[in-house]
C-alpha cells in the first residue's frame, strides 16, 4: 500500500511538469487535494470542512486525497481537482516548467526539513555519505546545501518511509520535522543535537506548504478562490485554538483513509505544523508568502541549475498580469 501511495505522488509531479491541463471545472465546486495522505499536516482544511467554514463562506469544497488508482495531478488535469498544496520549491519548479500557478494561501512560514544521521554522527562531518531523499522531489534545499558545503552526499532516492534508514542501508536521511522525524523517533532512533541538522537554523529557512491553483482556473474563479482561502485560514486558526478537537477531526480522516499512523504521531505533527506556521520574526501566524524567501529559494535553485530562471514572487501571487 505504502509504495502505491508514494507512486501516486511521483506520478503527480511528473504530470505537473509534463502536461499542463488548463481546463476549468464546469462545476463551481472546488475539489481540494492535499499533496499527501490524510494527516495532521492538513488539519486546517479538515476543520474548515468538518466545522462548516466552507459552507458558511458560500464555497463548495470537497477534499479528495490522492489514491493509488487516481493520482492527484491526473485529477487536476482531468479537472477533477482545482486546488492542491505544494511546497514553495516544488511550486517554483512547476512554474519554471511552464505551468503558471497562483498561491492563494501560504500556511508554512518556516522550513521543516532536517537531516538525521545514523550512529550519533554530525551530518556535516559525513562527507560522501549516502543520504536518503524523497523520490518525489522535496529536498531541493538539501541538494543546494550539499553542493555549497562540498559535502558531496550520494543521494539515494526512495519512495518509501523510514525503513531504509532504519534497516541501516543509509548513513543519513532527509526528514520533515513534523512527519518523518517523529516516525524515526517512533522507530527507536535516538535523536540528539549532534545527529540532527535543521536547515532552518543554517540559513535555509524557506517556507514550505501553501495552497496553489493553476492561474487559468484562478483567473476564472477569483471570488471562490478567495473564499476558499479565507475559510481554510479560519480552519487553521480554529485548530490552533482547539488542538484536541481538531485532532479528533484529523483522526476521522485518518481512519477513513486507513492510514497507518496513530494519534500520538498526529498530535506531535499538529503541534509542530502549527509551530512552523508562526513567523520567526513576528511570532505570528501570518499566512503570507514572503518575497524574501521566494527570492532566496529561487536564487539558490537557479544557481544549482534546478531552475532555468529565477521565478519571482509576483509570478506566484494573484495580481500578476498574465504573461
Amino acid at each position, binding site marked *: *500500500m505504502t509504495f502505491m501511495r508514494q507512486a501516486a505522488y511521483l506520478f503527480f509531479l511528473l504530470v505537473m511538469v509534463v502536461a499542463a491541463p488548463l481546463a476549468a471545472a464546469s462545476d463551481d465546486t472546488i475539489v481540494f487535494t492535499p499533496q499527501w495522505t490524510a494527516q495532521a499536516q492538513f488539519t486546517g482544511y479538515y476543520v474548515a470542512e468538518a466545522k462548516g467554514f466552507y459552507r458558511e463562506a458560500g464555497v463548495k469544497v470537497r477534499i479528495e486525497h490522492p489514491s493509488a488508482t487516481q493520482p492527484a495531478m491526473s485529477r487536476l488535469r482531468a479537472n477533477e481537482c482545482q486546488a492542491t498544496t505544494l511546497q514553495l520549491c516544488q511550486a517554483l519548479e512547476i512554474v519554471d516548467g511552464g505551468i503558471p500557478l497562483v498561491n492563494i494561501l501560504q500556511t508554512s512560514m518556516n522550513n521543516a526539513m532536517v537531516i538525521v544521521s545514523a550512529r550519533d554522527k554530525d551530518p556535516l562531518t559525513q562527507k560522501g555519505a549516502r543520504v536518503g531523499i524523497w523520490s518525489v522531489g522535496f529536498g531541493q534545499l538539501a541538494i543546494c546545501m550539499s553542493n555549497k558545503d562540498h559535502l558531496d552526499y550520494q543521494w539515494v532516492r526512495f519512495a518509501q518511509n523510514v525503513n531504509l534508514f*532504519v534497516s541501516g*542501508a543509509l548513513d543519513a536521511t532527509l526528514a520533515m520535522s513534523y512527519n518523518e522525524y517523529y516516525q524515526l523517533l517512533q522507530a527507536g532512533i535516538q535523536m540528539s543535537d549532534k545527529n540532527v541538522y535543521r536547515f532552518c537554523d543554517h540559513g535555509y529557512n524557506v517556507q514550505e506548504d501553501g495552497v496553489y491553483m493553476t492561474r487559468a482556473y484562478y483567473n476564472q474563479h477569483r471570488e471562490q478562490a478567495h473564499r476558499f482561502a479565507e475559510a481554510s485560514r479560519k480552519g487553521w486558526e480554529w485548530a490552533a485554538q482547539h488542538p484536541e478537537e481538531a485532532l479528533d477531526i484529523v483522526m476521522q480522516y485518518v481512519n477513513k483513509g486507513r492510514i497507518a499512523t496513530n494519534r500520538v504521531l498526529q498530535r506531535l505533527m499538529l503541534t509542530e505544523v502549527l509551530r512552523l506556521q508562526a513567523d520567526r520574526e513576528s511570532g505570528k501566524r501570518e499566512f503570507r508568502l514572503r518575497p524574501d524567501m521566494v527570492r532566496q529559494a529561487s536564487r539558490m535553485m537557479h544557481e544549482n541549475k534546478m531552475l532555468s530562471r529565477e521565478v519571482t514572487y509576483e509570478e506566484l501571487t494573484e495580481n500578476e498580469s498574465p504573461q
Partner: protein
Amino acid sequence: MAQRHHNMNKISSYIRRKLSVKVSLWVVMFAAVIFIAALGIFFYQAREAVRQEAINRATQILDKTSLRVEGILNRVEVATDMTQWLVQRHPNNPDSMFVYSQGMLLNNPDFYNCSIAFEPYYFKEKGRYFSAYTKFDLDSLRTIQGGSDYYQYFYMDWYLMPTLLDRPCWTEPYMDFDVSTNSYEMVTSYCQAIKDNKGRKIGVINTSLSLNWLSQTISGVKPYPNSYSIMIGRGGTYFVHPDTTKITRQTIFTQTLEQPDTAMTALGHAMQRGEQGIKRMSINNEDCYVFYKPLGKTGCSMAIVCPEDDIFSGFDRLRRAVMSMVIMGLFLMLFFFIRIITRELSPLRRLALEAETIASGQFDAQLPELHRTDEIGQLSNSFADMQQSLVRYMGELQDTTAQKASIERDLHIASGIQMGMLPKNFPTYPDRDDVQLFASLVPAKEVGGDLFDFYFHNEKLFFCIGDVSGKGVPASLVMAVTRSIFRTVSARETEPHRIMTTMNQAMAEMNQTNMFVTLFVGVLDLPTGHLLYSNAGHDAPLLIAEGVETLPCDSNIPVGVLPSWSYTRQEAQISTGTTIFLFTDGLTEAMNADKEQFRQERVDAVAAQALEQRSYEPRQLIAQMTQAVHQFVGDAEQSDDLTMMAIQYIKKQDDPDIHKTLVLSNDIQQVPRLNDFVQEVCADVHTPAPLAMQLQLAVEEAVVNVINYAYPPDTTGDVNIETIASDTQIQFIISDSGTPFDPTLQPDADTSLSAQQRPIGGLGIFLVRQIMDTVAYRHDGTHNILTLTKTLKS
C-alpha cells in the same frame, strides 16, 4: 479510638489473668513462626520452580516458532538463489524472465509473489521499466510486466536494499493490498541483486512470502490465559498485537514518545537488535514477564507477554489454600489448647478459692480431694499440709499471745511499782524556804534502769541520781535494789563517799550478772549550803548560778564493779540561788533520726539559755530541757531512759550581826584572850549571862583541846576561832592546821568517874556536846575544822 484502646487494654489484661490463654498463645505463636518460616522457604522454592517452568515454556514456543520461520525463509532463499543463478546465466533474454518468475511460484506454491526487475532501460526494447512479476490470482498464476510510471520499482526498498547493503536481504514486512481478494496481506520480501559478468548491478530478484500464517501462529501463542504475543519489525512497528488498531500503525516506542518508559524503550531496542531474552516489567500497570526472540532473518522479533499474576495464578491458589488451612489449624490449636489447659488447671482455681477462704480466717475449710499424682496433685497435698501446719501454728500463736499479754500486764504493774518507788512530792518554795527540787524520769521501755531519790534528814538533803547498765526488767531490778540500799545506807551514814563505798560493797558482792550503776550521791547541808558529794562514774552535774559550770568530779568507777573500791569525798559551797542540775546519759546521748546525739554542749546551751531568761527554777529548767530534747529527737524512738533532777538552793542566809575572828597560837597562855573574845561576842548578842558562861566553857574546852593536842609538842601553830553570831544563833568555827583529829568520834566521858580519874579530853567533848546544839567536824585536807553551833531562844 479511645474505645478501641480501652478494649485492647481489656483484652491484654484478660490474657495476663488467664494462664491457659497465655500458654496457648505462646505455643500457637511459636508454631506460627515455624510454619511461616517453613512455608516461606517452600513458597519461595515453589515460586522459583513455577517461574523456571514459565521460562522454559515460553522459550520452547519461541524456539519452535523461530525454527519454523527459519525453515521457510531458508526455502525462499534457496529458491531465490537458484533463480538468480539462472538469470545471471541468461541475462539477455527478457522474456525468459517471465518463465523464471513463474517457475518460482509453480515450484513453491506457498510463496506469495516473485519479480525479477531490471535497471531502467536495461532492455532497450522494453523501455524504462522491466519487471517480470508473477503472483497467484485466485488459483491460477498471473505473470505480468510490473514496472510503470505508477510503480517506479527502483525507488522501492526491496530494490534499493540489496545494493545499499551489498548483500541479499529481507525487507521490513508491509501490507500488500490484493485487488483480487480485496484484502491486505502481510508480506516480506527476500531480495537479491542480479549482477552481470563484470559485477555491475543489472537488477534485483525479489521473492515475497506471506506472513499471514506467521501472524496467525504468533497471535495464537497463549501459554497462559491472559498472556499474549507481539511481533515487531526492525522499525519497532507492531505486526502482531492483541490490540489490532496498533498493528502497522504504532510501534513499540509510540507510547514512550508521550510517556517516557525506560523499560519499554529498552525492550524495544533489545528486540530491534535481534537479541533474545527475558525482561520483567510493568505494562499498563501490570507486572509482566516478557520473553522475546528474533524471527530468523526477517529482522522481526517476537515477544510473549505473560502477566505475572497469570504465571503464578495456580501457585497463588495453592498458597492461599495452604495459608488458610494453616491459619485455621492455628486457630483450632489455640481453641483446643485453651480448653485442655483450662480443664487441667481447673483444680488450681478451686484450690485458689479454698486458699481465699483460708485466708479469710476459716482455717478448717475443707480442701478439694484430688486424686492426681502430677504437680497439681503435689501442690494440693502441700496445700493440705500447709493448712494443717497453719492450724497448729495459729493455736501456738494464740497461746503465745496470751502469755505475752500476761507479761505485758506484769510489766505494766512493775512499771507502776517502779514509778511508785520514786519520790513524788517535790518540795517547792512555799513549803520550804531553803531548797526547791524537781525531777523527771522517762523510761525508754515499760520499766527502766535510771533512778533518782532524795529525802530530808537532820536539816540535810540526801539525794542521788543513777543509771543502771542495760535496760528493761534486769536494769529495773538493779535500780530498785540500788535505791533501797541507798535509803538503808544513808540512814546510817551522812558522808556521801561513805554511803557510796558501803553501797558498792553491798552491791558488788551480790552482783552475779555483772551489772553496774553509775551513781551520784550528794548531801546538802541546808542551813549552810554546804554540799558533800561523791560521784561513781556518773555525768558531772551542772551548777547554774552566775554562769553555767560543771561540778568538779573525781573519776571513780561505777558502783557494783569492784567491792574494794574506796570512793572519794568531795565538797562544795552552794550559794543561795544556785541550781544543781543532775542528769543521766539518756539526756546527752538522746538520738534523733539521723543517729546524732544531743551532747553535753546542747545541755550546757539550754542551761545557759535558762540562766539568761532567769528561769532556772527546777521545774522550769526541767521543762525547758525536756522540750529541747523532744525538739531535737523529733519522731525518733527514745533509745535510753531519760532522767533529770534539779535542786535549787534558796536559803536566805541571815546576815550575822557579828562576825569576828580571833587567831591564837598553840599556847595555853592565850586562853584569857579567848575568854575575853567569847564574852565580847556574847555581850554583843545579848546572851544571858549563864548561857554566856556555858558557851565560854564549851569553846574554851574545845580550843584548849586543840592547843594541847593539835600540834606535836614543841611546835607552834595557829588556832583560828571564827564567830558568826546573830539573834537566833551563835556559831564558833575552830580551825587548825595540825594533825587531823575528829574529837566528835571520841567516846563520851564516863561521867560516873571523878574528874581526876577520867582521861584527858574525854570530859571536854562531852561538855561541849552538852552545851552546844550541834558539833560538827570536818577536815578540808589541810585544816581540822570544828563547828560548834548554839541556837538561841529569843
